[in-house]
């Protein structure tokens, strides 16, 4: 028998999160009603678990034993942050916008480089100012509204970055939103950013999270992306949960206007426990969206990609292409749902998820779904799970490549076909290098 969620016992983590809200509510700036409503929703449903269909394969209630404190440890040094920002992952070709331990830091952001047509502000400032545009946009169209983690993010959002790209603006350099956590000791960050791309504008966005020192960080991040008519947006996310016991949930809430292009990619290498969830809605005709991703997992790592793409307007095209490489006892999850609303005639949708299993104990859960309420559409999905091809390995070995090198070459090719979806060449090259390093580490064992 299913007990109503409200009367089941709360876990320690749930209690701690609710108490954290009560204790810090006075410190959280602005949007009091929104926060209170979101917290009430979270209190009622608790952390997502196996019984919640969209979280069936990632039982966060069981996995999140302890909710880390929101306050960052004192051991953090600004020097280390600077060092990281200058490092090879620093994306020096991009305009960096930094959130440090949940607070937007204009002093560590490249504001001087901002071109005309881009305005950047702090989310918490906007919430305090109560700008109706921001408040409305932040709630969006209620996508992901039922989701407990999105609700938790809305209740506890500390800060984030609000970017407005003016209509018609063509932004050459990518905007890199960096969420940095000090690490060292377990701590949590709740960050929500909002990017409003005006009609006909063109922009490339990257969003990465990093910790100055490895730790069991808990990152709950949300990106609200409002894409105007005829806009062209490239968006690359790298989900980070690299310390032992680290957890990250990244939620994308996107709405797309008419005649727009939206290309989103998510890279998840070496994540302890990570989930990327996408709630995308195609509201305007003739838009073209593409979602892609690559997850590289080993040990007992767990990566979940769950997406809901809703075709509301007719004549739109959506493509989803996700790949996993799973070693050891790692777990991959892909749940893709494409919904075609009654008016969305002439929808063209294709979804593909492919996984290579390297470990005998690795698990891949593939759940593609189509919900179609219009009658004149072309929609398909495919999911494959397999191992490396022995014949290909034999062929490569017969040319003198050691087995590990043959495997790496094939895996690299498999990964690169996903990474090819990234438009930003420099970023793609970096992720290709990261993949090579991941494979080299595998070979070294």
């Amino acid at each position, binding site marked *: 028998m299913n007990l109503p969620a409200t009367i089941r016992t709360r876990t320690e983590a749930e209690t701690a999160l609710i108490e954290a809200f009560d204790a810090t509510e006075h410190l959280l700036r602005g949007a009091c009603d929104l926060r209170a409503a979101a917290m009430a929703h979270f209190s009622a449903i608790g952390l997502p678990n196996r019984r919640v269909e969209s979280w069936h394969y990632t039982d966060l209630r069981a996995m999140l034993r302890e909710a880390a404190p929101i306050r960052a440890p004192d051991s953090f040094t600004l020097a280390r942050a600077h060092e990281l920002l200058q490092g090879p992952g620093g994306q020096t070709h991009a305009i960096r916008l930094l959130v440090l331990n949940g607070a937007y830091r204009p002093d560590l952001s490249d504001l001087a480089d901002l071109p005309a047509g881009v305005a950047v502000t702090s989310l918490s400032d906007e919430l305090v100012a109560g700008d109706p545009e921001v408040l409305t946009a932040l709630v969006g169209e209620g996508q992901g509204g039922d989701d407990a983690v999105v609700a938790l993010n809305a209740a506890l959002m500390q800060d984030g970055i609000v970017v407005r790209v003016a209509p018609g603006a063509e932004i050459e350099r990518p905007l890199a939103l960096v969420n940095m956590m000090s690490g060292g000791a377990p701590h949590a960050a709740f960050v929500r950013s909002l990017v409003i791309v005006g009609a006909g504008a063109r922009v490339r966005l990257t969003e990465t999270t990093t910790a100055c020192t490895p730790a069991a960080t808990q990152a709950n991040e949300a990106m609200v992306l409002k894409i105007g008519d005829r806009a062209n947006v490239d968006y690359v996310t790298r989900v980070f949960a690299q310390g032992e016991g680290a957890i990250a949930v990244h939620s994308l809430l996107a709405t797309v206007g008419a005649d727009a292009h939206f290309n989103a990619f998510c890279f998840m290498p070496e994540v302890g426990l990570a989930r990327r969830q996408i709630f995308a809605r195609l509201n305007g005709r003739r838009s073209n969206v593409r979602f892609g991703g690559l997850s590289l997992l080993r040990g007992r790592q767990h990566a979940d990609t769950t997406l809901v793409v809703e075709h509301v307007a007719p004549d739109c095209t959506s493509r989803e292409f996700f790949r996993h490489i799973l070693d050891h006892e790692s777990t991959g999850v892909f749940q893709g749902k494409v919904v075609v609303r009654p008016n969305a005639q002439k929808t063209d949708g294709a979804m593909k998820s492919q996984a290579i299993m390297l470990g005998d104990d690795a698990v891949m859960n593939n759940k593609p779904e189509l919900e179609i309420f219009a009658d004149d559409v072309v929609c398909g999905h495919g999911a494959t799970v397999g191992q490396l091809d*022995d*014949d*290909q390995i*034999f*062929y*490569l*070995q*017969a*040319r*003198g*490549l*050691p*087995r590990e*090198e043959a495997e790496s*070459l*094939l895996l*690299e*090719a*498999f990964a*690169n*076909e996903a990474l090819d979806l990234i438009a930003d060449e420099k970023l793609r090259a970096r992720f290709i290098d990261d993949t090579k390093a991941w494979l080299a580490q595998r070979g070294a064992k």
Partner: protein
Amino acid sequence: MLEVKNLHVSIGDRKILDGLNLTVKNGEVAAIMGPNGTGKSTLSYVIAGRPDYEVAEGEILLDGVNLLDMDTTERANAGVFLAFQYPLEIPGVATMTFLKAALNAQARARGQKELQTPDFMKKVRDAAQKLGVKQDMLKRPLNVGFSGGEKKRMEILQMALLQPKLGILDETDSGLDIDALRVVAEGVNALRSKDRSFLVITHYQRLLDYIKPDTVHVMARGKIARSGGPELALELEKSGYAEFIGEAA
């Protein structure tokens, strides 16, 4: 020198090679002919070290060293090269990347220096030109979308670059038109030398018009049924294989 001694091989419950003996001297081109299903391809795979086969008995010696003690990679590095009957397509791996990986792997295994990129590029371009391999093919993923003839040329290109001690051509003539056959045969002939042996597996005399063998061996029922000189191939062309199947049985 290649010496195959009393080789017994099966796959699952099926016995394929049944006490096969064969010697190929340095510099010799040995043709292996025979009807379908007599184990010609199995012999080539077993020499190259394909893992699916079970070797119950016997030895395969290359210059006195038993290949059966080595894995596939080690055999390649010892100088075995198998030109596949059906070369594998490797999506996502650029042909140049693969060629470089193979050359460097073999150089490393032999304690030699890896080639610098400009030298490597020159070497590949020169070899490609001789075999009529277009530059465009080198940029594409390995064998993906190549025609049958292009795949076979790519095999010979690899052999030319890797300079093996023993080249095994497994039905390299299958799927080739007459012009392609000539180009491929010329590529093989250019590699003939007193230090290199070839095992040329074919059904037909035609290939042997272009690659003149020193010896011809007829395989039937998992062993060599008869050996002779080039005249044996001509004789087979006239009389067919029926009598050899009888002989072996």
